[in-house]
């Protein structure tokens, strides 16, 4: 018996020792950890003021990258939004308005030898965050040029394609000149230099000093918050930038947590351990949480658009009558009910008119008779006309994510009504993305936000973008070739009115040929404690979070 007890204690001791020795190896970074006011527990009376920390919980499981030119996942976009600035910015809380950011004002373009020239005057006294390698220094045109050139390089940026035909040069310390081979309208130009994706301006010296890989987990910019620490799978801590050019942030720090489990985020908010959480794309959740004491729920744009694309090259979908039959068989309100207003809303054109210039409104589409209001009798007639009175069957893959499974499963049930048998194979999200790009799905549901009408139309409907076989294979799942000329003409049209008109014409063609069926958009949902004030009205944010700025406060 004694030996047994001994054996067990040895086993346990071994394991305990194993766990004890692991943290004993002191990590490099956390020397300043104790100074970091992350915990809520200790507040000794002699401390003059408790640091104000905003604790945000996102649904991501971990960080991707904080190099803004690679940031693609929502959590990455959220974080870089707090750390970096750009030449111009979308107004906080309202993604439809441009304002100057690092630039003093929004410039007017000039035409020089058929090329378009944009000249930006930089603010003076904008400071780059200090880092281990490089102390704080003033951001100048040198950094801006370096950053935009980095964005244009496919080796250092995911968004290089946006910057072809663009040259950037520094005229003096505070002046940057951007020259475009082909003139474009401001609606298409400003997004390239705004605070989204490739437009973010990074600081050159620290980037060069630490190298591309290290920069991904230690970003250095000029924004209201600067990087403090990253704990894998747990959180990123940002602290206030005391030298921020719009003034020191009212928050002392932001604790950005990775919490993939919705119910845990909800309980964390209720227990007071979190201040703001990413909510559920679910009307009933919004309703219930809004009723909780001390909790406010915000539902805002931008909305990610779900669209159903038909592969027009495979039978029986190559017959327009079949595609129209499917359109008539579908009921937008059925799909909508699965998410529930106000979280989602119907869309009637490929470019969402609610958020972007160039989309068709519900009234416009209905007037043209292109809304394909549900009519299953008509759908059956069309099917019979096309030679499929008894329907047919199709097989598709879907991502395991709710935002995909819901539309696919609802479509499955609705198409069954007109005799179409849709078999759904569920695969994980990365598999789906690869498989649909290999053209395995005759019908593709795709959920995406794109910054303007041109990107939507080019990426999904230009013949160059056709999956597998296009000149630059992308996400044209329908293999459509009918609006290339309109897309290209609109892209170089400088008159905004005419440009919008062309985009609308293009979408009317898409609807007439039933290339794709615009379904709905899903808005962003966040819940916060009522003492959190973002400091701006919340209408739409491209970075898909409520935006935490120097004006965000906690008023306990």
């Amino acid at each position, binding site marked *: 018996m004694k030996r047994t007890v001994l054996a067990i204690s040895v086993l346990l001791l071994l394991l305990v020792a194993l766990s004890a020795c692991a943290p004993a190896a002191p990590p490099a970074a956390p020397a300043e950890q104790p100074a970091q006011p992350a915990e809520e527990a200790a507040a000794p009376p002699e401390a003059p003021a408790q640091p104000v920390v905003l604790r945000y919980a996102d649904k991501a499981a971990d960080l991707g990258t904080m190099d803004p030119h690679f940031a693609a996942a929502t959590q990455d976009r959220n974080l870089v939004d707090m750390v970096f600035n750009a030449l111009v910015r979308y107004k906080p809380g309202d993604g439809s308005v441009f304002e100057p950011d690092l630039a003093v004002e929004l410039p007017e373009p000039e035409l020089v030898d058929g090329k378009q020239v944009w000249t930006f005057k930089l603010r003076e006294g904008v400071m780059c965050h200090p880092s281990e390698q490089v102390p704080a220094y003033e951001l100048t045109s040198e950094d801006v040029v370096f950053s935009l050139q980095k964005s244009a390089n496919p080796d250092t940026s995911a968004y290089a394609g946006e910057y072809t035909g663009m040259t950037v040069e520094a005229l003096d310390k505070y002046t940057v000149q951007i020259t475009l081979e082909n003139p474009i309208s401001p609606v298409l130009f400003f997004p390239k230099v705004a605070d989204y994706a490739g437009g973010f301006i990074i600081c050159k010296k620290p980037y060069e000093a630490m190298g591309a890989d290290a920069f991904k987990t230690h970003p250095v910019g000029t924004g209201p918050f600067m990087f403090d620490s990253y704990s894998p799978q747990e959180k990123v801590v940002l602290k206030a930038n005391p030298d921020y050019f719009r003034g020191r942030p009212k928050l002392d720090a932001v604790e950005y947590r990775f919490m993939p489990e*919705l*119910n845990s985020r*909800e309980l964390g908010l209720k227990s007071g351990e979190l201040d703001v959480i990413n909510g*559920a794309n*679910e009307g*009933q*959740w919004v309703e*219930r949480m809004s009723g909780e004491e001390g909790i406010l729920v915000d539902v805002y744009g931008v909305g990610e658009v779900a669209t159903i694309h038909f592969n027009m090259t495979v039978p029986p979908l190559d017959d327009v009558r079949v595609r129209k039959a499917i359109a008539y068989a579908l009921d937008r309100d*059925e799909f909508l*009910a*699965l998410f529930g207003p106000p979280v989602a809303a119907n869309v009637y054109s490929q470019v969402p008119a609610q958020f972007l210039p160039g989309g068709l409104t519900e009234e416009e589409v209905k007037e043209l008779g292109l809304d394909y209001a549900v009519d299953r009798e008509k759908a059956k007639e069309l099917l019979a006309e096309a030679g499929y009175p008894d329907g047919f069957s199709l097989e598709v*893959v879907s991502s*395991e994510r*709710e935002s995909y*499974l*819901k539309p*696919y*499963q*609802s479509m*499955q*049930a609705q198409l069954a009504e007109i005799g179409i048998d849709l*078999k*759904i*194979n*569920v*695969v*994980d999200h990365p*598999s789906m993305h690869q498989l649909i790009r290999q053209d395995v799905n005759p019908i593709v549901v795709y959920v995406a936000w794109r910054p303007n009408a041109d990107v939507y139309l080019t990426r999904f409907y230009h013949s160059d973008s056709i999956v597998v076989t296009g000149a630059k294979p992308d996400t044209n799942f329908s293999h459509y070739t009918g609006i290339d000329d309109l897309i290209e003409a609109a892209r170089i049209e400088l008159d905004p009115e005419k440009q919008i008109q062309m985009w609308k014409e293009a979408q009317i063609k898409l609807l007439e040929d039933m290339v794709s069926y615009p379904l709905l958009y899903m808005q962003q949902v966040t819940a916060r404690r009522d003492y959190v004030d973002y400091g701006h009205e919340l209408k739409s944010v491209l970075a898909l979070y409520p935006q935490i700025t120097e004006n965000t406060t906690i008023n306990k």
Partner: protein
Amino acid sequence: MTEATQTWEAPTIQLRSQRQRLWRTFVRNRTALLGLFLMLIVVFTAIFADDWFIAVFEGREARPLLAPHDPLKQDTRNRLAAPSSEHPMGLDSYGRDTLSRVIYGARVSLAVGIASVLIGGVLGALLGLTAGFLGGRVENILMRVTDVLMAFPSLIMGLMVLAVLGGGLLNMILAIGIVLSPTFARVAHGTTLSVKQNQYVEAARSYGAGNLRIAIRHILPNITSELVVLASIWTATAIRVEANLSFIGLGISPPTPAWGSMIRDGTQHLFNAPWVSLFPGLAILITVLAFNLLGDGLRDILDPRMQQ
């Protein structure tokens, strides 16, 4: 009745009376009877969820029989509705009747729970018993193979099976079976090592009994009780793992109901509509209860030590 049969020739009597004794042991065990009863209910539910046995002959689609509604019929406008007299277990996130889905779900879940544990159990027991009994180099090789198998969590094993054999229910059952097998192997191995040292094994060996005979007659019966218990422990796990694997495309495709997937869907709405995940959870509990009570009863019968 027993007295009447006793007059007949000896061997039959012995066999029969032994069988009867076993049966009486079982019947006396009230918990085992309860287990059998629950098991029958679950199996009955799975079989009679719809009238497939009539539909087959009439050449039509099966219609719900035990299930009050079509388990696939969506009523999205009333989704997540609370339990009512019309829908005693409420509606799920697609507006489908949860009760009907729980009833139909018994089919896949039972198949997964039984088949994968059986595969894992037989494979594992074989590995562990052989290794423990033969010892030496064979033991080393076999147990290192289980180390390899044990190193793969279900998700990765699922991916491997998916990559090699493709998707589908059968392959998923196989994947879960392989994931479970090393746990059986290790328990069988440890217990065999211990049992092997017992005097009766030595005795059997001194009689000149062959390896196979000793393994089957003396060792296997003495390690079954642990294996049966282990099997009943992993049943619930197997049923739930189905949900984890169906999202990488290895399980059943939507909209076919299965309890694991139903719980998974329901957890998205845990606080809004707890019934969506609660009822399939209870169904798993009942099934596990049935397996375990029945397993204990079986063990009492099979284990030689339990018979006075």
